[in-house]
């Protein structure tokens, strides 16, 4: 019996050799945990410059700005991925650990040249994070990568929070600006919108920011949206255009608008916005029928008139007209600039039948007319119905 037990113990001991921990052991002190990556491409030298934000675990727990930084920015230059990885390991001296990175920033010149290789490399990695947002920057990448954020110690985390919050609450960033969205649109004619970030007053891109009360100085700020067709940036939109585009695309559920009347204004927040889109053809002319329904909340009301049902209806009508004007403007802008902002080319391709036969050419989408209908209702007027009448009334 004892011999049998001994044999079992020996076999178990031998089997432990086969356990995976022996090979795939990960020692946390040997890892360079990446929080954010920045990539720039120089068209002249055809070289990539990659920045890594490597987390310094001791710095996260330490008092910021005193002695330890929460992360360090490393950069390497090379003409291909393998060169960059080997050079990065030479500089960093630890194994790159990309499982926890939060954001990728690319320069606009790189985005304009096409980021196909980066996307393919990223999608090939098993430990990739495809739901992270991809950012474009028009500021020098070096400055973007060598600044500290104030509230979030890690820049990647801060950028991710910025994008997610904007997409959810203000609609200036598309919620489909993640790595996986751009990968999905690589082989279709659909458009992807990536947030553009810049740096505010870049004189203070260092740890002294922690001691400065004016947090705006050297802070990252959202400046617009990059229009990406497949893997290439074809144009840029300002923040208000981004908002309008995303409303008409049906990706923007919450947004703010201001109505002006006789020098007074009313701030309205639209929530629960729903967009129904349908492409039809009437007498050989394709018509894109869009039905937009939104619920309104009065955020600020400085109008002189009391908020009666009649006045409320007037405001509603004015708001509808305002929104239609705003959305038609962006629609026409897209056509004029040759930007298929609303994936109309793909929608046209989808439409099958005799009447659509001549509509499958490349630029046919520009012939589409927009038929926009807006419906809205007030659901929240705030705690006071009428504004207080002060001196100015």
């Amino acid at each position, binding site marked *: 019996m004892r011999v049998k037990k001994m044999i079992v113990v020996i076999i178990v001991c031998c089997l432990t050799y*086969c356990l995976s921990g*022996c090979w*795939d052991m990960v020692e946390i002190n040997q890892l360079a945990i990446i929080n954010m990556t920045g990539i720039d491409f120089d068209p002249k030298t055809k070289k990539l410059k990659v920045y890594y934000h490597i987390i310094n675990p001791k710095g996260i727990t330490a008092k910021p700005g005193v002695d330890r930084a929460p992360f360090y920015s490393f950069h390497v230059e090379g003409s291909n991925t393998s060169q960059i990885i080997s050079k990065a390991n030479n500089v960093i001296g630890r194994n790159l650990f990309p499982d926890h990175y939060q954001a990728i920033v690319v320069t606009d010149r790189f985005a304009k040249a096409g980021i196909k290789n980066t996307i393919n490399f990223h999608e090939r990695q*098993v430990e990739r994070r495809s*739901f992270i947002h991809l950012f474009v920057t028009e500021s020098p990448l070096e400055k973007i990568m060598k600044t500290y954020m104030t509230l979030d110690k890690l820049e990647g985390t801060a950028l991710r929070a910025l994008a997610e919050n904007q997409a959810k609450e203000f609609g200036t960033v598309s919620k489909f600006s993640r790595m*996986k969205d751009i990968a999905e649109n690589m082989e279709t004619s659909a458009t992807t919108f990536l947030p553009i970030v810049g740096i505010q007053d870049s004189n203070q891109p260092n740890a002294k920011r922690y001691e400065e009360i004016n947090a705006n100085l050297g802070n990252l700020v959202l400046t617009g949206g990059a229009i990406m067709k497949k893997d290439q940036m074809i144009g840029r939109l300002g923040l208000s255009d981004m908002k309008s585009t995303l409303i008409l695309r049906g990706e923007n559920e919450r947004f703010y608008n201001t109505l002006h009347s006789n020098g007074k204004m009313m701030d309205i927040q639209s929530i629960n916005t729903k967009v129904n889109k349908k492409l039809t053809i009437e007498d050989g002319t394709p018509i894109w029928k869009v039905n937009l329904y939104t619920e309104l909340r009065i955020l600020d009301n400085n109008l002189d008139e009391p908020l009666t049902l009649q006045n409320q209806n007037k405001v509603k009508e004015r708001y509808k007209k305002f929104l239609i004007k705003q959305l038609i403007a962006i629609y026409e802008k897209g056509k004029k600039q040759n930007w298929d902002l609303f994936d109309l080319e793909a929608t046209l391709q989808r439409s099958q039948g005799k009447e659509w036969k001549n509509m499958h050419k490349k630029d046919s989408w520009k012939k589409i007319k927009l038929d926009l209908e807006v419906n809205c209702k007030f659901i929240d007027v705030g705690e006071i119905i009428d504004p207080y009448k002060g001196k100015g009334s």
Partner: protein
Amino acid sequence: MERPQLSSWQFFLLTISHLIGSAFFYIPSTLVGTSKQISWILPLIAGAFTIIIACLWLHLASQYPKHSLIQICLKVGGKYVGCFFALLYIWYCLQITSWVTRDIGNFAKMTLLPHTPITMFHIMFLLIICYASIKGIDTIARTNELLLPIVIITLFILFLLTIPDWKWERFEPLLPFDWNASVKNTSNLMAFPFFESFTLMIIIPYVKNKAKKNFLLGMGCYTLLLSMVTFFIIGTLGVVRSSHAIYPLYTIMQEIQISPLIEHLESTISMILLTTIFVKISITYYCCVLGICQLFQLKDRTWVSIPLILLVSGIAMAFEDIVEDVDWYNKYAFANGALYGIILPLILLAVSGIRKFSNRQKENIAK
């Protein structure tokens, strides 16, 4: 040798598990790659055809009740030809076991533990499977009875979690797809995994009752499940990405994001794959061992099971990498599967028919 008894419910679950194996993990990518948005229909077509062919298998089994596939081969083909047929089926079981073992090795090495040698996964996995096969089919069936419902429920919960990523637009436009490739895909799909279930004919005599009904029902349920998984993959991942990914289901789970804190649920799907593959290999390994035992009339499975680990883990290393595996599957899977799933059963049926006819004539002459 003991004569285990399987309930009809256990056999139904075993059929589903045997079919699930690694197929629902690998197949959708190949399907979506060629047949685009309509790829979810292909499993239904392949399933329907296989169910018709399965009626043939069951007809063969019903002519020799209480006989396993190996015993049928020996009875129909006689000592030498029957032995050859039986050896072919044993080889088929061995082949399936080694392929699926390699599948788990590939998956684990690629996604979970990239630095661990692939052989280690094979050997560790096969050791447990060897133990399971020594314990017998009733042990495997009971394990499966416990694990499969958990697997299915987890899978559905995971599906629910990915609903925010669902887009109906992904089903249109109907991208131009290759008809020839779609037909080829359907036929390959019949070979892997549908024809592989023919090996279950080795254990069918152990089922207490309603074996045929549950076999077909299990096949039907799996067909629906595979179609649903493919449909779900198209809806959540889109045609473009799922046709590029090797493990689309894994990619989907990797991208689940319930909140910034709860994300990356791919380990759950890995557990599901490990479980389903464990049951599948256990069944085929057991069938292989049982087949050898029945062919050589042995009573103890232990000493056949143990050296098979060495053989299976060796054959599992035959393919250099997943590219060779996929290439072989696309070129030869149907031809290989058709030999065991259509040609041999037809020969067996024809010979048994001729034998019965000549026996009857002999009886008539004798009268």
